[in-house]
């Protein structure tokens, strides 16, 4: 604890020297062509890095020194400043630039287009917003009912209701442009051409910071087989979108496969900047009179705390086979959940279902993460990443011989 404090304090004097590159990185609007951003995250890097590597614009060495003050005498203002000085930023695409001020994102489909919660949530304090799944043409979605609560979670089958990519750009692009929080547009399609066309239309749109591919859609060209459960289809759609746009590209994995690792690897090889894991688990609920399925679409996707262990397992597995950043999602309701996913190798997380009960959760998790770092004497949350991963190559779960129920 004491040693770490000294590291922080001593680095204070050096900070202004390296403050310059940060100015580019901290600009409110991300410009994809700027390649000055230095630090990519190495998911399993466990060495705590002092401030020199993560320069900040507003460095005041006196305030940095305050971090070392005993809690009892620290004023709330000093505490506030110290918390602000903890580096929660994360770069999801070192080559194309997708810098988040903190690693707490909101998940696609649970936060609309970022405007719905109005004044209840201060969107500017969220790490990034993944907007509702967007397709080339408008979609009316599935028949109601579309949601139902299940033990520890919920089932949904919205069916990608959305006004189409052009309407989304027209209606929300100007709003997003005025925000400093990056908006990642989640896109879906029924053919590779659909995905490519949506990506092409989003390319260069001010206010669009990146793309997240929802590949859990039936591939009409391949007899309705989901892209996400077929390694070659996942590779093909990722590569095609990669060629179509220079926007940072995240690809969202489906858990509904026997082994997700070859698919994750294919996605990485095809040029994705980051992987999001996981989408919902396929599930079913029965109507109260037990004469039919409850949801209008019969099947729904299960989300919420019930799926957290599955998400942890998949993040844990994927972290060992890919070197691109992993954004974890699945049942996060508290800081402990966030830390669990970090420990399994995720560099950022998405909060979804929990927002419905607790809209302020994403913002609060960012604050709690900073406080947790301070409590542990860390200047960055990076040392928390990958701590639960096997310590050496060849550990049991890397050999594929683990227990599979």
């Amino acid at each position, binding site marked *: 604890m004491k040693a770490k404090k000294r590291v922080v304090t001593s680095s204070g004097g050096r900070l202004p020297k390296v403050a310059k590159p940060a100015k580019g990185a901290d600009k409110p609007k991300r410009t994809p062509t700027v390649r000055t951003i230095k630090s990519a995250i190495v998911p399993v890097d466990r060495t705590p890095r002092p401030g020199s590597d993560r320069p900040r614009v507003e460095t005041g060495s006196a305030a940095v020194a305050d971090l070392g003050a005993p809690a009892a005498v620290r004023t709330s203002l000093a505490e506030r400043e110290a918390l602000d000085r903890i580096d929660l930023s994360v770069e999801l695409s070192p080559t194309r630039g997708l810098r988040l001020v903190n690693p707490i994102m909101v998940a696609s489909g649970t936060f609309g287009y970022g405007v*719905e919660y109005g004044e209840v949530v201060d969107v500017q304090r969220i790490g990034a917003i993944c907007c509702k799944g967007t397709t080339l043409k408008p979609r009316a979605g599935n028949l109601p*009912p579309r949601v139902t609560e299940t033990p520890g979670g919920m089932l*949904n089958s919205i069916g990608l209701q959305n006004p189409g990519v052009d309407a989304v750009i027209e209606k929300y692009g100007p709003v997003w442009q005025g925000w400093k929080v990056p908006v990642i547009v989640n896109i879906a399609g029924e053919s590779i051409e659909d995905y490519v066309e949506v990506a092409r239309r989003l390319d260069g749109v001010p206010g669009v910071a990146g793309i997240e591919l929802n590949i859990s859609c039936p591939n009409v060209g391949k007899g309705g087989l989901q892209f996400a459960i077929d390694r070659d289809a996942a590779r093909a759609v990722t590569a095609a979108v990669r060629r179509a746009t220079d926007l940072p590209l995240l690809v969202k994995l489906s858990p509904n496969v026997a082994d997700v690792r070859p698919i994750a690897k294919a996605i990485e090889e095809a040029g994705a900047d980051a992987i999001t894991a996981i989408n919902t688990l396929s599930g079913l609920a029965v109507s109260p009179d037990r004469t039919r399925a409850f949801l209008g679409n019969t099947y729904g996707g299960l989300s919420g705390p019930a799926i957290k262990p599955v998400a942890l397992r998949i993040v844990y597995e994927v972290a060992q086979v890919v070197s691109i950043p992993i954004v974890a999602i699945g049942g996060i309701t508290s800081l402990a959940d966030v830390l669990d996913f970090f420990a399994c190798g995720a560099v950022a997380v998405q909060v979804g279902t929990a927002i419905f009960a*607790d809209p302020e959760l994403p913002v609060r998790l960012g604050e709690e993460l900073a406080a947790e770092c301070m409590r542990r004497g860390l200047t960055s949350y990076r040392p928390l990443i990958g701590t639960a991963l096997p310590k050496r190559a060849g550990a049991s779960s890397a050999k594929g011989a683990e227990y599979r129920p």
Partner: protein
Amino acid sequence: MTMRLVSAELVESRQILPGQWIQSFNAPELATGSRAGQFVHVRTGDYSGLVLRRPFSINTADPATGIITLHFRTVGRGTEWLTRAREGDRLDMLGPLGRPFEVDPRSRHLLLIAGGLGMAGIRMLADEAVRDGRQVVVLFGAQSASHVYPSSLLPDEVEYVVATDDGSLGHHGFVTELAIDYEAWADQAFACGPHAMLKRLAALAAGRRERLGVAKLGRKRGGGKQDPLGSTSARRKAFLQVSMEQTMGCAVGACLGCTVIGVEGPQRVCREGPVFAAEEIAWESIA
């Protein structure tokens, strides 16, 4: 009023009918800004496996005392938890949400039709109408006499007519059969209840203008310009407005979970509703 997160203190909880409760909460922010037809999204304190909030119509709201009431039936773990809440407990409520009933300023006679717990959806409209000096008839349908909403909980000024499925009180049959008698009297009708009831009422209301030959007195404002379907002005002119129900996720319009099928595509109950003009709903999609 814009929605906000409110900490509402439970001040009274009582069981008014078997399995039906009315709870009063001290929540001045909600009591002053809400209108009849709007709802709140309540977080239950039982976090063990309950991941969603519960939507409830605002049953009554009294700006003078800052008290709102919620009327609900125990149907599952969330509502059961609510019945165990004690005076002084604070509940996390998001609201007021949704669009309210729109009463035409020229309407003198309001017909309010409720089926079962649908009373919670129209109860506040009775208060508003009485306050504004309108005449109100409340038609209420229930299974039997033991499920009939107590008349003592309604304003004295309203006429209260009851129908029961088994004939144990009032009209023997459905409340929709009563509605026919009052159709000519009413300037506007507002309904909340099972979707089958609303569908029947919508069928009765369709073509009313042609059948009754409603007089068009004086020049129509707007010069014959058609109000867009779903707009406040179009709803204000609609004869029948219905409060719809659907399983709900976020309640703010983000998740698109609570849709019903409208004639112009899916409509979010939480955002475009819960109140709709009857002609906005594609009734053939409702069983």
